[in-house]
């Protein structure tokens, strides 16, 4: 398994099967793609005055009822003269079991086309991810959560998915800066989310990696409603410029250097649906040197079905 495999999402994992790894160009492709691979994150939430949209590339700390369908990624990169065009089509469904605890299921379809070589296509492994909110403080717009990502080995296509499972315990947080003094003015719409996880491959010969990333967001809704009325209309006020970043740092087994991407983009949050698009910019040559794009359509299930599918199975709504 490659260094980048521990991004622990199907988007990447699918490219790292033994078949692919035996294929040098595709192996390189996989390494690059792993860094780009989004953590297909998706949880939005409200803390005090703050609305946190669902980030696309990285995990955020909310346990919520929602559906990301589809998340589409296009990424072309070159490595040692080899060009590979990667496409991913993914979904994630998250269901609250009780308030503050949710279980997510995600998966996807991968299409990797190295120039001059046959394409590798197929379904990625499924992934199960429970998340539990440890601290939730609306007053300070702060939340922290514990999550566990389990990529279920062997559930995807042999052509593109790993046979062994991998496990990534993760700590996540979110913090809005609305509680800065009024004099901070236009800094108060800022918010950050972050996550750090330790990826444990099922195959012992592969490196363990630290998966870390986050997002810096600027809420126009917060600016408009809590700081200064800018005269934004209903559409503009729902925009959130965001920069996400996602890195993978191997810690053993000669895993190589840190790889990752920085993804600037914009999110639009409606009453029950969110749209987002981001560029995918590799941070170094080990990651790649071509810019990709990722886009997502996201449904707030708890707003669409507030009395049925959108509430926790046990314990009622928060």
């Amino acid at each position, binding site marked *: 398994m490659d260094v980048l495999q521990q991004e622990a999402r199907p988007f990447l994992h699918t490219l790292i099967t033994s078949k692919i790894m035996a294929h040098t160009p595709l192996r390189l492709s996989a390494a690059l793609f792993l860094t780009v691979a989004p953590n297909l994150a998706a949880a939005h939430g*409200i803390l*005090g*005055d703050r*609305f946190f949209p669902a980030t696309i590339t990285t995990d955020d700390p909310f346990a919520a009822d929602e559906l990301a369908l589809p998340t589409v990624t296009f990424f072309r990169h070159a490595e040692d003269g080899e060009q590979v065009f990667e496409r991913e089509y993914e979904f994630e469904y998250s269901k609250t079991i009780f308030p503050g605890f949710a279980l997510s299921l995600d998966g996807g379809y991968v299409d990797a086309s190295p120039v001059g070589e046959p394409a590798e296509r197929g379904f990625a492994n499924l992934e199960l991810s429970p998340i539990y909110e440890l601290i939730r403080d609306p007053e300070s717009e702060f939340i922290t959560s514990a999550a566990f990502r389990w990529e279920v080995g062997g559930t995807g296509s042999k052509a593109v998915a790993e046979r062994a499972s991998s496990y990534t315990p993760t700590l996540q947080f979110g913090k809005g800066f609305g509680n800065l003094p*009024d004099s901070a003015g236009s800094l108060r719409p800022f918010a950050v989310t972050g996550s750090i996880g330790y990826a444990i491959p099922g195959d012992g010969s592969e490196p363990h990696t630290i998966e870390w990333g986050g997002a810096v967001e600027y809420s126009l*809704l917060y600016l*408009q*409603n*809590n*700081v*200064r*009325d800018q005269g934004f209309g*209903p559409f503009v*006020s729902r925009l959130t410029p965001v920069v996400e970043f996602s890195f993978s740092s191997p810690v053993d087994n000669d895993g190589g250097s840190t790889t990752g991407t920085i993804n600037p983009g914009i999110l639009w949050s*409606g*009453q*029950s*649906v969110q749209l987002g698009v981001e560029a995918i910019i590799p941070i170094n040559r080990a990651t790649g040197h071509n810019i990709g794009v990722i886009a997502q*359509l996201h*449904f*707030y299930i*708890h*707003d*669409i*079905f*507030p*009395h049925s599918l959108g509430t926790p199975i046990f314990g009622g*709504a928060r």
Partner: protein
Amino acid sequence: MRFGYAVILWCMFATAASAHAFLQHAEPGAGASLKSAPKQLVLNFSEALEPSFSGVEVTDSKGDSVEAASIAVSGSSMRATLKPLSPGQYRVKWHAVSLDSHRTEGQFTFTVQP
């Protein structure tokens, strides 16, 4: 495919009574600096409100309430009649519960110039 588009459009536009109530417009607005004191505060939201669980408080720099009467909540709006305001900064704190029981809240300040 058409069914898929229909579902997406429905989710985007047909949920008027089933989502969080976000503030869409306030008068006076956040951060406003007014030459004359407003006689009332009006807040308009993206969803219809549950009157029993929605409200707003306007306070002066000492923390004293400056509403002249009880808050009127109707449809997707809140209205507060204000006492005559002297120059200074005032803080508005609102909370809104939509008909499907989702809660939102917010606060902002406005200033009445001397």
